[in-house]
């Protein structure tokens, strides 16, 4: 693959901005989580591109670690989504505005 390094970075930046837009635009909690997933994918794209640029394995190793972290995060976040659904019967983020100790 002979592509400039900057193109890979620009592509990852576009992907990250799309994820950020999803987080800011959508109001359902589950779509906010989808936006976080997209941003994490953009980060892993940067890691893989850097790994290919410097011909090192470290970037790919870190992407694998990142995937494990994402799996843990999604497990907890979706459990929390189910919990919030049982509490309020809604997933719109504006509904969750109260705290109780």
């Amino acid at each position, binding site marked *: 693959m002979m592509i400039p390094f900057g193109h*890979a970075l620009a592509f990852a930046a576009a992907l990250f901005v799309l994820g950020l837009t999803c987080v800011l635009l959508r109001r359902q909690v589950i*779509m906010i989580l*989808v936006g976080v997933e*997209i941003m994490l*994918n953009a980060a892993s794209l940067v890691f893989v591109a850097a*790994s290919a640029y410097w011909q090192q394995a470290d970037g790919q190793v870190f992407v694998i*670690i990142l995937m494990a972290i994402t799996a843990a995060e999604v*497990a907890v976040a979706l459990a929390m989504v189910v919990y919030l659904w049982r509490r309020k019967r809604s997933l719109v983020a504006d509904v969750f505005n109260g705290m109780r100790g």
Partner: protein
Amino acid sequence: MLAATLLCITRRNPVHAVIYLVVSFFALAIIFYLLGAPLVAAFEVIVYAGAIMVLFLFIIMMLGLAPQETPEGPGWQRWAPLVLLSSSLMICTLMLIFQDPAASKDIGAFYLAPQAVGEALFGRYALAVEVISFQLLFATIGAYMLGKPLPKGDEQ
């Protein structure tokens, strides 16, 4: 692939959004493969598209989420800060990237066999693997605690 992601974040129905996200992940896996990372590409398909997205779909279908989110008020007031923030971030990032002379250098031909990744992962980064395993355990316990039935009187 950007088109698939764009479709993903604009769908009102969460099921359609997740399906488009799976398409996007497959495209990203192909890009990983072309950048010389076959193991990461395989994990992208198996872990992301296979496990995580199925978990999303399962939760969406279990809760029976209906397509919703009708915006209130004038549209541009809701869109303006978002468009401003996203476009300024994008423009600044692109300027920073293309000012750098290293950005125009080609990524050389590179192929990293899965064996090399495994040796690095369990050699130099063995401690990180242990930490990750602990974290997965804690996530399991946390998900279990959150999934317990609510005490009486808390349901609304």
